[in-house]
């Protein structure tokens, strides 16, 4: 019986050396990165911890809100025929194509207590919505929303309508068909939208600066802090932490989508 050969065994001597060199380089890079991150985190934790916690405080609720509203909007777009459908689709996708500064400007117009709409909203909510963490969450939600909505819509449209019809013949009301059949079957696509959306919420910069300000310990997220500390040694630690946070968020949500329901 022939034994299976590893990929390295199938290569010639020169290729094997090249593969080893690449592996060593990647290993060294990873090792260096992790060591740097750990050392940096310890050395600069006092500086890094504030923006790190603000980023978590902003990105987690923003992902949850954008996830729920994005999936609801994606479902409505995939299944519904209602007036204003194309308006919802266009408005929901605008943050993808508009420059962050324009989004920031419009959000300031809507949220700032100095404007008519913003003043009304502030009175209704009973809380100022700009230059605090709430403003940052709103901005990150707006940034993440299109990814969640579009991915959910595509995934829901990809579900076999025959299976949904079969569920209706079983007597399941429409809301149960949506929750127990459509969404579970679309979960992978939805999860990928959430993953990209969460990374986007984490990385939002321009509009956050305009709506949230750059207030240390309150609205200074990792993305803002990186620019602020661009000439200082802790920037590398921040960049590495942000990259790892984004990868963790994407991997975590992706794994959720792959799990069986």
């Amino acid at each position, binding site marked *: 019986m022939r034994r299976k050969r590893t990929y390295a065994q199938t290569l010639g001597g020169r290729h094997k050396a090249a593969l080893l060199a690449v592996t060593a380089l990647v290993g060294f890079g990873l090792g260096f990165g992790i060591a740097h991150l750990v050392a940096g985190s310890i050395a600069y934790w006092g500086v890094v911890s504030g923006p790190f916690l603000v980023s978590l405080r902003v990105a987690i609720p923003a992902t949850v809100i954008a996830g729920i509203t994005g999936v609801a909007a994606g479902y409505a777009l995939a299944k519904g025929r209602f007036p204003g459908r194309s308006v919802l689709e266009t408005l929901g996708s605008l943050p993808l194509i508009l420059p962050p500064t324009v989004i920031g400007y419009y959000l300031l117009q809507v949220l700032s207590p100095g404007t008519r709409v913003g003043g009304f909203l502030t009175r209704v909510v009973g809380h100022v919505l700009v230059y605090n963490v709430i403003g940052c969450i709103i901005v990150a939600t707006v940034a993440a929303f299109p990814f969640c909505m579009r991915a959910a819509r595509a995934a829901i449209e990809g579900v*076999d309508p*025959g*299976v949904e*019809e*079969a*569920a*209706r*013949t*079983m*007597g*399941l*009301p*429409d809301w149960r068909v949506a929750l*127990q*059949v459509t969404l*579970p*079957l679309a979960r992978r696509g939805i999860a990928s939208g959430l993953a990209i959306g969460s990374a986007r919420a984490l990385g939002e910069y321009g509009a956050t600066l305009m709506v949230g300000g750059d207030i240390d310990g309150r609205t200074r997220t990792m993305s803002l802090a990186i620019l602020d500390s661009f000439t200082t040694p802790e920037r590398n630690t921040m960049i590495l932490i942000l990259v790892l946070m984004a990868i963790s968020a994407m991997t975590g949500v992706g794994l959720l989508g792959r799990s*069986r*329901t």
Partner: protein
Amino acid sequence: MTPALEVAVARSIGEFELDVAFTVESGLSVLFGPSGAGKSLTLALIAGLIRPDTGTIAIHGDVVTDCSRRIHVSTQQRRIGMVFQDGLLLPHRSVLDNVALAVRQVRGRRERRAVAGEWLQRVGAEELADRQPGSLSGGQRQRVALARGLAGDPALVLLDEPLSALDAAVRRELRDVIRGVIISSGVPAVLVTHDAEEAEELGDVVIAYHDGRVTGTRSIERPVRPEPPPGTPGSGERT
């Protein structure tokens, strides 16, 4: 006695025009005709998945569709069971869950699963309870779909070419299962097929379709034979 099903509907789809009227009593009625004759469309209309342009549909005397009075009872409210050509089991649920989700007559997860288990036993698929639909053969899938179609205590069962995707040996075996289980359950059923032999073997009544019209109705006399004991609806190796 009120018929199990009264249909008098018309529906146009593109250039195709369906215009049919028939009644179904107890037992198994077969809509037989070539592909494209409108048989499956008729089942979709009965199930409420599509609305007719004109006409009425009544199940056990209850009007579920009446275009002139703008009555259209939703699919969920019609108390029908349906078996599709390719099963259409929920791929993310176990076989037992697929059947249990259709059980409407009892409350409580454990009770619904118990009823589902009984139906899986009646179609000879009890050993498949924990399997995922993706791992089933075509014949096994249709057994489960049959159990699911009957588990909700329906007033009417609709079977849309349930055997057409299967090979000849499995079809022969499942014919016995379908007829045995449906007759023993006492639920009136309407089955669609384009296979003359299948129509002859399964139907108590055969309603012939051609080009969107009913061209004839024929009752089939069957010798009275003892009902198969519960739990053994088929014979031979299970597929």
